[in-house]
């Protein structure tokens, strides 16, 4: 059997694929964070909570309204995104003129409130969300058994990431957005409703998190704390990629998934820390992040 650094090739390939799938999650979440930070300059600490709310929306929708997975994939982001817009309109906007730190504190506080409220009702053990029927089972790839649902997660996440990048970098709406955050007064003078754009952008970023939440629901137990553990890693990914860089967030997300996957084979004890080591290195050598522009 071919060995790579003492690990059979088959195992090595399997780990790379799994790393890529985890990376797709990181990409999706850090993308939403990067959009919100890049365009609104809000450090959204409620992002993990929004991811969790997306998963809960899917779970409760199925339990009480009979909404299936595919409908939830559309409805949960809309619902949570709408909720996010309310938060932006009635809370974040009021502190928009203050230091970034206030937005961070506000969103952090909100995240704790959402989490605490749901813990009160649902506990922390989490609930099972069934894998949709067409995605049950999997493929025997020779070097590993790949569950069909994970293949779907990878594909769906990549498509959404590309779509977002295209929307912001290659369309007129995206151009308005970028211009509106660069110079809001001038854009207002041209008759563009900048506050509305900002609200929509926040809503979109939050909807991305909720979408990731629905994708995650059949993989991990749906529990109120599922977001907070992921959030810190995702922040590290955004810092490594460069705050605000959209393509950077996606590529870094995938890359970090791979690095983490390999660490799990060669030195599993460090799997939770390796991303932070990379972050420290990047901050020392390229403080603006791998894809960020020097300020």
């Amino acid at each position, binding site marked *: 059997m071919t060995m790579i650094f003492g690990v059979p090739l088959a195992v090595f390939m399997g780990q790379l694929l799994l790393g890529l799938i985890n990376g797709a999650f990181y990409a999706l979440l850090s993308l939403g964070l990067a959009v919100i930070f890049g365009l609104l300059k809000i450090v959204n600490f409620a992002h993990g909570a929004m991811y969790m709310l997306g998963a809960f929306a899917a779970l409760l929708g199925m339990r009480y309204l009979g909404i299936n997975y595919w409908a939830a994939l559309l409805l949960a982001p809309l619902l949570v995104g709408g909720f996010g817009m309310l938060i932006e309109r009635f809370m974040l906007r009021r502190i928009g003129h203050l230091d970034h730190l206030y937005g961070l504190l506000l969103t952090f506080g909100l995240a704790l409130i959402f989490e605490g409220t749901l813990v009160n009702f649902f506990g*922390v053990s989490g*609930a099972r969300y069934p894998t949709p029927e067409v995605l049950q089972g999997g493929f025997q790839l020779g070097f590993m058994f790949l569950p069909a649902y994970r293949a779907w997660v990878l594909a769906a996440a990549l498509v959404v990431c590309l779509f977002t990048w295209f929307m912001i970098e290659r369309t007129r709406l995206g151009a308005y957005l970028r211009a509106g955050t660069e110079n809001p007064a001038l854009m207002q003078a041209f008759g563009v409703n900048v506050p509305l754009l900002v609200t929509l952008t926040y809503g979109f970023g939050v909807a991305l998190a909720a979408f990731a939440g629905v994708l995650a629901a059949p*993989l991990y*137990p749906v*529990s109120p704390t599922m977001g907070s553990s992921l959030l810190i890693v995702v922040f590290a990914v955004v810092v490594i990629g460069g705050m605000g860089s959209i393509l950077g967030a996606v590529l870094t997300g995938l890359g970090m998934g791979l690095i983490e996957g390999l660490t799990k084979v060669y030195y599993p004890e460090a799997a*939770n820390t390796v991303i932070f080591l990379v972050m420290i290195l990047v901050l020392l050598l390229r403080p603006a992040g791998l894809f960020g522009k020097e300020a």
Partner: protein
Amino acid sequence: MTFIKKTLASSIALAAATVMATSAQAEMSDGEVRIGYLADMSGTYRDLAGPGGLEALNMAVEDFGGSVNGAAIDVFSADDNNSADVGANTVRGWIDQDNVDMVAGMVASSVVIAVTKVLEENDGLGIISGSAASSITNEHCTPNHIHWVYDTYPLANGTAKAIVDQGGDTWFMLTADYAFGHALEGDVTKVVEENGGEIVGGVRHPFPTSDFSSYILQAQGSGAKIVGLANAGADTVNAINTASQFGLTQAGQQLAGLLVFLNDVHAMGLETTQGLLLTTGWYWNMDDESREWAERYYERVGRMPTMVQAGIYSSTMHYLKAVEEAGTDDPETVRAQMAEMPVNDFFSRNGRIREDGRMVHDMYLAEVKSPEASTHEWDLYEILATIPAEEAFRPLSESQCKLVQN
């Protein structure tokens, strides 16, 4: 002047009242029996004890009649956030300022070891129902605490031995990378090897871990018949879920959950957990007596109790009976009285408190039912065998506890 007179008069009246009250309940400190409930009320371990455990404690107090020999029973509670500092400081405050007589609940082993030190220094009394580490009544034993429900020794001894006996003789260990995981891994390794099995590989994963796919893949690659999970709570749940997604059991390997609570199985569902072998200190549906109590609990909480929650009720009842019998809430006297009385109730069979503080009682080897065999939401286990009290726990002859003469 009048002010001083009034103050004086009322102080005297108060003092007199206190003296009268004390003479009526001669031996109860402050004329009350005070119980403090310490547990993780909001974090990872909330559902196995948490608010449900407090409710179980309140049930015991109510069932006892709300007072002992005329002294009212007062219940305090606090969240330890799974932090040893928070737990130890809370208990210190309870003893110093509130004169709490007994501390109940107690889940995370790290918190418990810190709290028992405080109890020993301040001559308090604690009854531990939640935590797993067998060291609590071994090298960390004190004359001031009792360990009620289970520990890592019977977990390894019950589950691992049963599996090796059934032919599961090659093991891959998936271990949480901290003290509890290492201890459980050690206990399991010993049991497996003593019974003719072999550990062929393992991985120590960070605590906590949400994505187990990589480790499951490594376990699949190892070729071991059994994948042993030396972790707890959310980690176990995640590992079992992931194993199910990757078809680990379909490919012929079997999972051994070494510390699995009822709430974990309920959360994962039977589709995922069916066939899992586990050791438990109690199961709500194991006989009429247990069912009767569990149904009363269910009425109040809306969930079936875990072995920890049942143990909290059982231990509080036993404590209150001992206080009544001894006629005092003095910790040393009550501790001695508790040890003198056998523990036989809906929770504990053939139970007795040993000199190291271990309450030994019958333990049970259970198997998780298949979805077809289960008749309702909480019908989750089938009890396969009873592990007699005297065999289940670490024998005193192997004890390193300072209270045991070896």
